[in-house]
């Protein structure tokens, strides 16, 4: 018993065992409900399958979301109501234009580029001899924390004056070719693109994993039928493969978009959001936690949420369409 209480692994096993037991109990309830109760059956199943998750979400995310929305109409210490003042600030502060511009660029480029590269790569290595290794290489950046990624790319982008020895890979290459070294992270507006490259580097692996699974899921019957009909590979790709994995494409694009809206680590560690590289998520963190202004920070969080709505709307329409097709 001591093991379970006083040893970390013991506690870990304990929580897993307890959790498994709880789930077993829940499933047993659903099973019993299935056999005996007639009408309440559907609600019992819903409560068992959906209940725990929805409960956790309500406590852990919905309540804080409401609280955030509420705080966005109050001042820094959440003492006095200030109406829409925080929102005005969010959209009109000196850094706002840059932050919004950059955020849009991030949300536009990262999902598209990551998905494209992930998809192409997934197709190219599918069922090849080196599939495992190839996939691991593209996936590796995801396994590295953002701090690690920041350091890695520091060695790539580092700038030294023309008379000095370069220690950054890109500048070494550029000077070897005979050109002047480039201040990748310091010169606006291109520096944002170089930060975006880091995010793409990380997210392509995510896209690849999901799309690879989707590609493998395309039923072989359909492929054979198409081949018997004599389609060439490009038509196959455009008319069979892509439509078949379309739901996964949407999933990948949406997920990466949302992640991009939230991530501020790269900007923060590589340029400290200086040199016109500010993004909304970083501003939000600054105002909420560094400056202690809960009002403005919350307003910025809500602003980010508003930006997500188009993505959500698009997804809803896609899901409705898919449901119509599947019947």
């Amino acid at each position: 018993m001591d093991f379970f209480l006083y040893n970390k692994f013991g506690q870990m096993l304990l929580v897993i065992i307890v959790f498994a037991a709880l789930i077993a109990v829940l499933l047993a309830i659903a099973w019993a409900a299935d056999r005996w109760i007639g009408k309440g059956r559907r609600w019992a199943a819903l409560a068992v399958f959906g209940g725990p998750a929805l409960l956790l979400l309500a406590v852990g995310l919905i309540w804080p979301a409401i609280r955030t929305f509420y705080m966005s109409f109050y001042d820094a210490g959440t003492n006095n109501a200030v109406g829409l003042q925080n929102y005005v600030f969010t959209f009109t502060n000196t850094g706002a234009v840059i932050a919004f511009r950059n955020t849009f660029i991030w949300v536009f480029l990262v999902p598209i580029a990551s998905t494209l590269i992930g998809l192409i790569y997934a197709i190219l290595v599918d069922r090849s001899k080196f599939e495992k290794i190839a996939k691991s290489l593209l996936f590796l950046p995801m396994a590295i924390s953002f701090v690690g990624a920041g350091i890695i790319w520091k060695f790539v982008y580092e700038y030294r004056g023309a008379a000095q020895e370069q220690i950054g890979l890109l500048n070494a290459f550029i000077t070897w070719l005979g050109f002047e070294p480039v201040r990748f992270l310091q010169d606006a507006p291109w520096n944002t693109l170089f930060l975006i490259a880091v995010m793409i580097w990380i997210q392509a692996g995510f896209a690849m994993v999901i799309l690879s699974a989707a590609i493998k899921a395309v039923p072989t019957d359909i492929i054979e039928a198409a081949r018997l009909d004599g389609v060439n590979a490009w038509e196959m790709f455009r008319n069979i493969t892509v439509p078949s994995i379309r739901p996964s494409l949407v999933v990948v694009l949406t997920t990466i978009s949302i992640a991009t809206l939230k991530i501020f680590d790269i900007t923060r560690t590589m340029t400290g959001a200086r040199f016109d590289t500010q993004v909304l998520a970083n501003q939000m963190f600054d105002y909420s936690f560094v400056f202690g202004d809960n009002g403005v920070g919350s307003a910025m969080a809500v602003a980010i949420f508003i930006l997500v709505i188009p993505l959500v709307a698009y997804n809803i329409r896609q899901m409705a369409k898919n449901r119509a097709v599947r019947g």
Partner: protein
Amino acid sequence: MKRTTARRTGAAVAGGLAFALALTACSGSDLGGGGDDGGDGGGDAACEDYADYGTFEGDEVTILSSIREQEADQMEDTFVDFEECTGIDVVHNGIGEFETQVVVQAEGGNAPNLAIIPQPGLLARLVNDGYILEPNEQTVANAQEGWTEEWLNYGTVDGTFYAAPLMASVKSFVWYSPTAFEENGYEVPTTWDELIALSDQIVADHGGDGVVKPWCAGIESGGATGWPATDFIEDMVLREAGPEVYDQWVTHEIPFNDPQILAATERAGSILRNEDYVNGGIGDSRSIATTSFNDGGLPILEGNCFMYRMASFYEAQWPEGTDVSPEGDAFAFYLPGDDADSKPLLTAGEFVGAFDDNEATQAVQAFMSSGEWANLRVTIGGVTSANNAVDPANASSDVLRLAIELLQDPDAVSRFDGSDLMPSAVGAGSFWTGMTEWIDGADTQTVLDQIEASWPAS
């Protein structure tokens, strides 16, 4: 096929379990209850020193700080005898993200007993939000005995004293290479004009290849990029305008873009934005913005620059094996005032605030505010304290000895780091970003105007 995969999975799982079991044997996997308690207190003669703090029965006091690694080990060593004699278990947790976490933990209802706070501005915020309580009389008495009024003011919020200072660092230092100075026949400057003359001399002697410069600088520091430049400006304000103006500046009695502040900034610019003077071994003045402050002084060792203005704690950044001594590879001299008599000194430090008024908490807080603790800590090494009771001879290195002497110099006019005193929207926000833009080439007046505009209304 299936059987081999099943077997492989089984092997993997078995291996994993074995690995986990091996790890369980590690002490690191034990939770609580372990560790060595002091056990029999009172057995040591030295305990009479600790009699004032009372005796307890294994009460735990947690301290939260941003001190980590070796420095954390050293600090924890100061409590060994204290713990044994009083029976208190002092648990120190050092974390990065301290400024964020201390607020989150406090607001989340999970505050530590004590916190070591590096910014008086943050201290004020925690006091105003009602999280930090007043210390006991012993602490107040210790503080009044140990520090000058200026230091005590920084631990005071709205007239009430809340937190005694702990350690200190001196920021008005210029790092240089004694051997390089020796070789070139340079003398350590004692006035600002001599400093500039020296810089010009170096340009004349070495300025040919575009690589070697008199000064190097680096202000990059992740989310805090820009802070070394704020230190430079603060040093200049002290020299250009004087301590009274400095006080008015940090409390916003005069606006940030006051002409005196502008003048001070331009004086800093006469070095930091002077292409003849910077950035030795790395590039031009703009490259200062992307050079990390840790690396900023390294060109000195390569002979590519001669001076680096940085705080006393930079000592830890020199690569292992560097001889940091008055005749060695690296040492620091005091950033001179305008004349040989004036000694403006920019300092920094931490303050110990209590989140509750338990007796054990207050006992630890009192101990940390005492001269005994200060001497103990300085002797262990690596840091300085502004406590009057500290004997400079205890300092563990020449740089630290110099720092303590400066701190205790009655002629020195010391002021705390300005950006730590200002509200964080400025001191950890627009001042930092403004300085980065300024180094990157922006117009001085525009930058100061922007910072002024960002000062919070309240």
